[in-house]
C-alpha cells in the first residue's frame, strides 16, 4: 500500500468516525428531548387521572363497550389464567374473544373444560378477509366469552377473525401471556371517551412480569427479576415505554403500539384492511398504515400512548429466546419502514412524514448498523496504526455515560410517577442495571439487530416465536 493510499484510508476513517460521532450526538439529543417531553406529559396525565371519576366510568351505561381479542397459539400453560384475569377486569360492558390459532397443545381442551364451551352457529360479518374457522364456541358460564377455533394461519389472521366476530365499536388486542391491572381497560379507553372523533388508537404501558409477586392473575408486588437478562429488560422497557413512547405520543408521531395491549377503533381498522400477514410485527405495521391512511384523508386524528394502563408480560430469560424476539422486532420494523418509504420526508404526511418516520428510519432502523460500523472501525484503525487509545477510551466513556443518563432519567421518571418498585434493594438494582447494561447486554442486543437486518436482506420469513420458558413469577403464599 502506497503512502497515498494510506493517507486516503486515514482520511476516510476520519470522516467515517466524524459521521458516527455526529450521529450519536444527534441521537442522544433527540432521545433527551423525547424524555423531557415525557416528563411534561406524564405530569399532566397523572394529574388528569387524579381528577377523573373512574368509579363513575366503571358503572356508567355510557362507557363504550369493548371487545377484547386474545389470539392464542400453543398457550395452554397460561391461557385459562389470562382469560380469567381479563374476564374479571373492572369494566361495565365487554366481551372476550379467544382465537385459537391452530394450537397443537391442549389449549382448546383446557378452555372447553374451564369455561364449559359449547359449539354454536354464529353468523358474522367478514369485514376483513380471513382464513376459515373450524368452530365457534360460546361459554355456558361466561356469556361474554367466545372462543374461535381455526387452523394455524398466523397472528394477523387470528386477530382479523376476532375483529370480524367482535360486536363492539372498540377492540383491544392483548397477548395471552400478559397480566392486567383490574382498571387497565377503563384507563386505556379514557382518551377515546374524551375525544371520540379524534383518537383512533391507544396503547398501554407494558412492564416486565418476571420476578413479580402474582396472585389470582394480578401483580401484587412488582419486583426486579433475579435473572440478569430479564432484569436488563426492565430498564429497556422503562426507557422505551415510559420515556420514549410518551414523548412521541405527545407530538402524535408514535408509530408503534405494542400488540401486547392496544385499543383500536374498529371501523377505522376495517377501513385500512385490518392486520396484514406480510410482516412479523403486525402491531407496528397496522399503526403505520393508520397514520398513512388518515394523513392522506387529511382527517384530524391521534394515536395515543398512555403510561397508566399497565400490563405485565413475561420477557425472555434465555439468550436464544431474546435473540429470536429481538430479531423479529427489528425485522418487523425494517419491513414496516421499507414498505412505507413513501412517507419518509414527505410533507403530505405532515409531522409523521417529516419527523416520526425519519426518527424511526434514522435512529431505530439504521442505529444498529451505524453502531456496528463504529465498533468495526476500532480494530481497523488499530491495524492501520492510526488509533488513538486516549480517544477510544474517551469515546467509550462518553457512550456509556450517555446511555446511563437516558436509563437513569427513565428510572427517575418511573420514580416520580408510579414508583412501583417499592423496595430500596430493587431501586439500587435498577440504578446499577442502568449502568451495567452498557457492558455486554447492549452489545448483545446490537448483534441481534444486526443479524435481523441481514435476515431481512436475505428475505427470511420466519415469525421467530419465542419458546415458552418457566416464568419467574413468585407465588404469594
Amino acid at each position, binding site marked *: 500500500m502506497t503512502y497515498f493510499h494510506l493517507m486516503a484510508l486515514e482520511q476516510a476513517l476520519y470522516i467515517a468516525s466524524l459521521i458516527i460521532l455526529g450521529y450519536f450526538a444527534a441521537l442522544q439529543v433527540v432521545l433527551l428531548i423525547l424524555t423531557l417531553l415525557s416528563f411534561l406529559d406524564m405530569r399532566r396525565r397523572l394529574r388528569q387521572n387524579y381528577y377523573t371519576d373512574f368509579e363513575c366510568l366503571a358503572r*356508567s351505561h355510557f362507557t363504550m363497550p369493548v371487545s377484547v381479542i386474545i389470539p392464542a397459539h400453543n398457550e395452554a400453560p397460561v391461557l385459562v389464567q389470562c382469560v380469567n384475569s381479563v374476564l374479571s377486569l373492572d369494566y361495565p360492558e365487554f366481551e372476550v374473544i379467544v382465537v385459537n390459532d391452530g394450537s397443537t397443545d391442549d389449549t382448546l381442551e383446557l378452555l372447553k373444560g374451564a369455561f364449559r364451551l359449547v359449539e354454536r352457529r354464529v353468523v358474522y360479518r367478514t369485514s376483513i378477509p380471513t382464513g376459515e374457522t373450524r368452530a365457534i364456541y360460546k361459554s355456558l358460564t361466561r356469556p361474554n366469552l367466545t372462543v374461535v377455533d381455526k387452523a394455524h394461519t398466523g397472528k394477523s389472521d387470528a386477530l382479523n377473525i376476532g375483529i370480524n366476530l367482535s360486536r363492539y365499536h372498540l377492540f383491544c388486542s392483548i397477548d395471552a401471556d400478559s397480566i392486567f391491572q383490574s382498571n387497565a381497560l377503563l384507563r386505556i379507553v379514557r382518551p377515546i371517551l374524551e375525544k371520540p372523533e379524534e383518537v383512533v388508537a391507544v396503547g398501554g404501558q407494558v412492564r416486565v412480569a418476571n420476578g413479580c409477586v402474582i396472585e389470582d392473575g394480578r401483580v401484587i408486588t412488582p419486583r426486579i427479576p433475579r435473572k440478569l437478562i430479564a432484569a436488563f429488560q426492565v430498564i429497556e422497557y422503562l426507557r422505551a415505554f415510559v420515556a420514549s413512547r410518551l414523548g412521541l405520543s405527545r407530538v402524535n408521531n408514535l408509530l408503534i403500539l405494542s400488540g401486547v395491549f392496544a385499543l383500536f377503533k374498529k371501523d377505522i381498522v376495517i377501513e385500512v384492511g385490518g392486520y396484514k400477514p406480510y410482516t412479523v410485527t403486525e402491531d407496528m405495521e397496522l399503526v403505520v398504515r393508520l397514520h398513512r391512511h388518515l394523513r392522506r384523508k387529511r382527517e384530524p386524528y391521534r394515536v395515543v400512548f398512555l403510561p397508566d394502563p399497565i400490563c405485565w408480560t413475561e420477557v425472555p430469560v434465555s439468550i436464544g429466546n431474546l435473540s429470536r424476539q429481538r430479531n423479529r422486532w427489528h425485522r418487523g420494523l425494517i419491513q414496516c419502514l421499507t414498505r412505507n418509504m413513501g412517507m419518509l420526508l414527505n410533507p403530505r404526511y405532515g409531522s409523521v412524514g417529516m419527523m416520526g418516520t425519519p426518527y424511526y428510519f434514522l435512529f431505530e432502523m439504521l442505529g444498529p448498523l451505524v453502531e456496528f460500523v463504529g465498533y468495526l472501525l476500532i480494530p481497523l484503525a488499530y491495524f492501520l496504526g492510526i488509533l488513538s487509545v486516549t480517544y477510544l477510551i474517551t469515546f467509550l466513556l462518553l457512550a456509556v455515560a450517555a446511555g446511563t443518563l437516558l436509563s437513569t432519567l427513565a428510572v427517575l421518571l418511573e420514580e416520580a410517577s408510579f414508583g412501583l418498585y417499592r423496595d430500596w434493594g430493587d431501586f439500587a438494582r435498577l440504578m446499577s442495571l442502568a449502568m451495567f447494561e452498557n457492558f455486554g447486554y447492549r452489545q448483545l442486543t446490537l448483534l441481534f439487530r444486526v443479524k435481523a437486518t441481514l435476515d431481512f436482506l436475505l428475505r427470511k420469513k420466519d415469525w421467530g416465536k419465542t419458546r415458552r420458558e418457566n416464568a419467574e413469577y413468585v407465588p404469594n403464599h
Partner: protein
Amino acid sequence: MAIPLNILYWVFIGLVFLVILSALAAGLNRAFTGSRRKREEASKTRCRELLIMLGRESAEARERVLIEIEETLGPATAEYIAVSLSRLEVRQRAELTGLFQRKGLVRYFVRQLKSQRKWRRARAAKVLGELNLPVASAALYRALDDPDPDIRSVAARGLSKLRHPRAQAALIEILGRHEELISSRIAAMFIDVGAASVPLLVKNMRNTNWRARFWTAEILGQVADRRAEGVLVSALNDSSADVRAAAAKALGKIGTKSAGLQVIPLLRDTEWFVRSHAAWTLGQLKMVEAVGELVRSLYDRAWWVRKSSLEALANVGDAAIPALVATLQAEDRFARESAAEALQRLGVEVPSAGPEGSRG
C-alpha cells in the same frame, strides 16, 4: 482527530454529573415521597378516626372532636375531609360544612376556582363539589364554562353530587353542549336520581339542540319510567336520526307493546342505525306483530340491521319459528344462516348449512 480532548472530557464530566444528579433526584424523590405518603396516610387516618368519633361519641365528646377537626382543617386536609362528607349523616355533614365556612375555606376554594393554574382550579372544583352550599354551587355553575375540559368535567361531577333541583336544572342545560365525557357524567347522575328527574327530562325533549334531545332520550331509556313513553314515541319522528335511534332504544327498555307498534315503521328508516335500534327494541319487546318486518330486515343492505333482526327474532321466541323455518329456504345466504342461528338459539334442531355455515 480534530475534536480537542478537553472538550470531550468536559462533555463526559457533564454527562456523569447529570447521571449522578438524576440518580440522586430519583433517590431523594423516593425517600421524600415515602415520608410524604406516610404523613398523608397518618393525617388521613386521624381524620378518619375523628369522623368516626363524630358519629358515635356523646355531645360533649363530639364538641371536642369538632374542635380537633377545626384545628386540623386547612387547605391541605380539606380535600380528604370534603370527600368524606358524603358518607356522614346529615347533621354531622352540616356541622362540618359549617366548619369549612368558619375557617374561610369555602371563600378560599371559590377564589382558587379562578386561579390561573389549572390543577388548583381542579382541586377547588373537587372540594366545592362535595360541599352542598349555595355559594359553592354558584361557583361551580360558573366553572361549567371553564375553558379547560378537565375543570368542566370536575365541576359537572361536583354539581351532579348535589342532587339539588337547581343543580339539575343547570346540568340539564349543558347536556350535550360539551364533551361526551361530561354529558355521560351528567347522564349517570340523572339515572341515579331516577324517576324524580323524569318531568325535567321530558321537558328537555323539546330542547332545540339535537344532542341534548339525544342524551335525554338515552337517559330516559335507562330510567325506564312509563311517563316518558309519550314523549319518546313523538321522538320517533324527530328530524335527527340520532334522536330517533335513541328514542327507539329507550322504548325497548320502557317495554310497552303499544309503543312497540310505533317502532315497527322505523325498520324502514333511511338510516341504518335507526333501523338497527328499532329491530333491537322489537326483540326486547318480543313483538310478535313485527316478525314479518323483522324477517324482511334479515335481507337489509346494512349488516348491523340484519344482525339486530336476527337477535330480535331469537328474542321473540316460538312465534317466530314458522317464519324462520321458511327463511331456511331463502336464496340469500345470510338470511338462511341467520334463520338457522336463531332457530338453534330457540332450541330447534337445524341441519348443517354447509362447510362455511358460520359466514355472513
